[in-house]
C-alpha cells in the first residue's frame, strides 16, 4: 500500500495570548508545532505499516521553508519520504486554492512515488479550524472520502475499513480505493521517534516542489486571485463581562445565593 499523509505546521494555539493594549493576537514567540490532527493521520498510516511492512508512507506539506521541522518530525516517527510544497505564488490561498494546489502537487508526486492508495489528513488544522481542505482535495482528485475517522480498523485488499465519529455515536465505514480520510483524535497514544529514526530524519533529504516543478498547475487558481473567499477583517472577540463569583463561603450559603440569583433571573 502507498499512503500519502498531508500535514501542516501550525502555531500552537494553546500558547496564543492577546495583547491587552492593542487587543490583537501576539504571534511572536509562539512555538510552531505539527498540527495535532495530522499527527493522528500519520499514526494511523504507521499502524497500517506495522501490519504490512511493505507499506510506503509519504508526507507532503504546503508552507514556507520554515515548515521543514514538521516534515522531519514525521520522518522521525513514521514517514519514508517528505515533500515540501513551497512558492510565493501559493501564498494567500484560501481553502479552495490550497486544495487545488495540493491536488496538482499530489499528481506530480505520484509520478515520482507511484499512485497513492490512500491519502490521510487531519480533520482540520488548529489555526484555521475549517476542516475543508481534506474534502476539497478529495473533490479535486475525484476520490471518495471519510471524514472524522478515529482509526483504521482494516486495510483489506478490496476496501479500507474505518471507525468514524458521528453525531449519534460511532460507525464502521468501508470505502473503496483510492480514497481520502480525515482523522480526529483516536483513543490510543502516538508513537515516539526512536533514536535511530530521529538521527536519520535530521540527515534526510526533503524534496522541494515549487510552481515551476508542477507543469500542469494553473496559477490563476492559486494564491489570493485564485481564492473566492476574502478576509474583510479580523477582530479579537470581546471578553465576556466577568460574572458574579462566590468564594470563601460555605457550600450552603453559596448554593442559596446561586438559587436566588437564578430565580430572580427567571432561569429556573
Amino acid at each position, binding site marked *: 500500500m502507498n499512503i500519502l499523509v498531508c500535514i501542516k505546521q501550525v*502555531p500552537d*494555539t*494553546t500558547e496564543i495570548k492577546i495583547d491587552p493594549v492593542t487587543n490583537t*493576537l501576539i504571534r511572536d514567540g509562539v512555538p510552531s508545532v505539527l498540527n495535532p490532527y495530522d499527527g493522528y493521520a500519520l499514526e494511523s498510516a504507521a499502524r497500517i505499516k506495522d501490519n504490512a511492512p511493505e507499506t510506503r508512507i509519504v508526507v507532503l506539506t504546503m508552507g514556507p521553508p520554515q515548515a521543514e521541522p514538521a516534515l522531519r518530525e514525521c520522518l522521525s516517527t513514521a514517514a519514508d519520504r517528505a515533500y515540501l510544497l513551497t512558492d510565493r505564488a501559493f501564498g494567500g490561498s*484560501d*481553502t*479552495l486554492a490550497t*486544495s487545488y494546489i495540493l491536488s496538482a502537487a499530489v499528481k506530480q508526486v505520484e509520478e515520482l512515488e507511484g499512485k497513492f492508495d490512500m491519502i490521510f489528513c487531519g480533520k482540520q488544522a*488548529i489555526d484555521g*479550524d*475549517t*476542516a*475543508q481542505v*481534506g*474534502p*476539497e482535495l478529495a*473533490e*479535486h482528485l475525484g476520490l*471518495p472520502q471519510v*471524514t*472524522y475517522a478515529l482509526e483504521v480498523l482494516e486495510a483489506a485488499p478490496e476496501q479500507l*475499513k474505518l471507525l468514524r465519529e458521528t*453525531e*449519534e455515536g*460511532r*460507525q*464502521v*465505514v*468501508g*470505502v473503496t480505493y483510492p480514497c481520502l480520510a480525515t482523522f480526529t483524535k483516536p483513543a490510543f497514544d502516538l508513537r515516539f521517534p526512536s533514536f535511530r529514526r530521529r538521527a536519520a530524519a535530521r540527515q534526510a533529504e526533503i524534496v522541494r516542489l515549487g510552481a515551476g516543478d508542477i507543469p500542469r498547475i494553473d496559477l490563476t487558481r492559486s494564491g489570493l486571485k485564485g*481564492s*473566492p*473567499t*476574502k478576509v*474583510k*477583517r*479580523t*477582530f*479579537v*472577540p470581546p*471578553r*465576556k463581562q*466577568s*460574572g*458574579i*463569583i*462566590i*468564594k*470563601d*463561603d460555605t*457550600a*450552603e450559603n*453559596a*448554593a442559596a445565593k*446561586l438559587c436566588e*440569583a*437564578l*430565580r430572580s433571573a427567571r*432561569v*429556573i
Partner: protein
Amino acid sequence: MEARTKDLWVFVETKEDGTAKNVGIELLSPGRELADKQGGKLVALVVGCGVEKAAKEAACHGADLVLTVDAPEFREYSTDAYAAALTELLKKYAPTSLLIGATPNGRDLGPRVSCRLNTGLTADCTNLDVDAETGCVCWTRPAFGGNLMAVILCPDNRPQMGTVRPGVFKKPPVSEKEAEIIQEDFRFPAEKIRTRVLENLREAAGELVNLEEAEIIVAGGRGVGSAEGFKLLQELCDVLGGTLGASRAAVDAGWVTHSHQVGQTGKTVGPKLYIACGISGAIQHLAGMTGSDRVVAINKDADAPIFGVADYGIVGDLFDVVPALIAELKKQA
C-alpha cells in the same frame, strides 16, 4: 445556467425518522433576515428518505418555498449522493447563497459541493449579516481556537456558501401561512456510492442524549473524578429537569459515554442554563457551550478559565456545593 436569483437557501439535514435536525430549522431565522436584505426568497432544501415531517417543519417555520429530494439512497447520509443532489439543484435554481448546518455531515458535505461549483465556503460561522457596501453575505467565524474572529466575504463566486454552527440561532416562530412543498425527482444510483456504513455503534436506547435541544444542562469534567461522581450530577439534573453533559476529559476517562460530550469534538449546545461542575474550561470545551444563555461554574480552582465565561461562579468543592444545591432546590420547590 439560468440567470442567478437573489434567493437564499438553507439545507435542512434530516434524521433517520424523517424529522429535521434542529440546526436546519434554526438557520431559517438568519436565513429570513439575509433573504429580506438581499431581496430574494427563503428556500429550504430538505434531503432524505420519507421527509414529509421535515419538509412540513420547514414550511411552517418561515420558508417561502420548500424543495425536497426524497429517495431510498438518501436514507443514510453519504458524501457521494448528497453532494450530487445539492450540486444538481444549486445549478438548476441558481440561488445567491446557501447555509448549511455545521454538523459533522454538514462539514463533510459543504466543501465537496463548494469545490465542485468552484465557489467559496466559510466554515463554522457564528454570525451572519449582509455587507452594506457589496451586498454580499458577511460570514463571521472563529479561528485560532476561538482566539480570533474573522469576517469573510465571497465577492465574485456564487453561490456564497457557509456552514453555520448549531445552537447559535434560535428557531423562528411558527409562521401563519405554510410554504409550498415541491418534490424534486433527483435520484443517485446507489451503486455509485463509494462508501458504505457497515455498522452503527449507537449508544443504548435508554442512553440517547439530546443535548442540542436541552434547556438545562449539568456538565461534569475531570474534577468529577469518577463514574460515581456523575451520579451526583445526574441527581442535580433530575431536580432541575436537565440533561447530563461532560467534557472530553470525563468521556476519555470512561466515566460517561461520548454522547454526553460537549465541545469541539462533541456537541455544540445552547441551553438556557449550563452548569459546569469540575470543568476547567479548555478552549475546546468552551467552543461547544459559550452559546448558552447563562453559565454557572463550580470549581475548586479560582483561576480556572471556565470562570471567565461564567455568569455565576462558585469557588468550592463540587462534592460540597452540588449536594447543597440539590438540597436548596428541593427545599424551595
